[in-house]
């Protein structure tokens, strides 16, 4: 590592902030773009599992709320992609890499949504898992990222409340509705535990080394369990892991997540990976004429 890069590394590790026009080592720039892309891709792909249920929302209020929530995810994709664009990667290139599988998106968005129960579980728990990572990004060394995370975290706060409200309506409803929630939770638990990534020591995680991430994967997962398992249990729901428990020292123990499943899914072999990418590609291709012929200056 050359002297200038070492100086930069010490700077960010000491809490220093970096702006778009500042000098940055190539490795920082490329790691940053990769991280940003995965985040933006995830917001954009996260739209698809929920979008189907906008159309099936059972009340006017839920339809409005779910449309607004999904709209926020699209808005977040816009904020995030704009950052990568300002770092030198075009939106077109990012969308191309997403479609071809060269760039990835988070595991949870590769799974099907089967019932309205999934909609509750996603907004309540999947969004909660995401917010933990997002709050940690408020301390990102890349200042534009830290800034947009304020808007993103503020908007996500209604998502969690909406999610909880959807769940509570079902949990105080009929047996059939309660069953929808438990069944959805049973299916989502595995992907949720995998969501924050394998427990690589943060000192070995390049994203942490450059202070793009400010917390380790296991730290995030523990925060999720600490915050949300009590919420799950207090509703009389069960978590499908007989080994899940909180130790006296406050550390949560759980069955080893299926890391092979995680790897397989994020490399495009999830149950809905390919058809969702195909769906996205269909509309990107179909509307290319709008971008090219009409919106070009």
């Amino acid at each position, binding site marked *: 590592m050359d002297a200038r890069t070492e100086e930069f590394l010490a700077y960010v590790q000491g809490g220093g902030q970096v702006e778009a*026009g500042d000098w940055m080592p190539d490795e920082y720039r490329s790691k940053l773009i990769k991280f940003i892309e995965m985040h933006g891709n995830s917001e954009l792909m996260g739209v698809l599992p929920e979008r189907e249920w906008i159309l099936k929302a059972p009340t006017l209020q839920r339809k409005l709320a779910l449309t607004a929530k999904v*709209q926020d995810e699209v*808005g977040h994709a*816009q*904020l995030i992609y*704009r950052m990568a*664009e300002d770092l030198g990667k075009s*939106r077109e290139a990012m969308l191309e890499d997403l479609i071809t599988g060269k760039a990835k998106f988070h595991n949870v968005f590769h799974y099907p949504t089967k019932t309205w129960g999934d909609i509750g579980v996603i907004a309540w728990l999947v969004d909660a898992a995401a917010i933990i990572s997002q709050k940690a990004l408020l301390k990102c060394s890349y200042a534009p990222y830290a800034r*947009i995370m304020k*808007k993103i975290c503020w908007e996500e706060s209604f998502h969690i409340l909406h999610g909880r409200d959807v769940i509570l309506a079902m949990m105080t409803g009929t047996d059939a509705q309660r069953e929808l929630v438990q069944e959805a939770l049973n299916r989502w638990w595995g992907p949720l535990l995998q969501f924050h990534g394998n427990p690589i020591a943060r000192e070995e995680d390049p994203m942490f080394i450059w202070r793009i991430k400010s917390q380790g994967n296991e730290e995030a997962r523990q925060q999720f369990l600490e915050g949300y398992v009590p919420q799950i249990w207090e509703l009389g729901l069960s978590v499908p892991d007989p080994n899940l428990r909180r130790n006296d020292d406050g550390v949560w123990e759980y069955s080893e997540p299926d890391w092979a499943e995680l790897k397989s899914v994020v490399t495009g072999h999830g149950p809905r990976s390919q058809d969702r990418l195909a769906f996205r590609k269909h509309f990107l291709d179909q509307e290319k004429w709008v971008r090219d012929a*009409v*919106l*070009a*200056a």
Partner: protein
Amino acid sequence: MKVFEVFRQEKKGQPFAHAGSVVAPDAAFAEAWAREQYGRRGESEALWLVPRDAVHEVSEWADEFDLKYRRVDGYSIKARLAEARERAGTAAP
């Protein structure tokens, strides 16, 4: 397509702060889109939309000579004030 910087004012009387940017073919589309991205919840009192190339950044400064005489931290009156009070017999007991 052009980048338009978005500045937003949260409440009347507050400064306009940079909030992000939208990519649009012209100012009219930029307005239609920025309205929703930065105001769909009624969270903004007002927005300024500025084409990126109209923003002229200034971030280099000469820092050669002592400029503290222009700032509060360039003045330390404690010792002199104590002496003046002594002289006037108004120092605290």
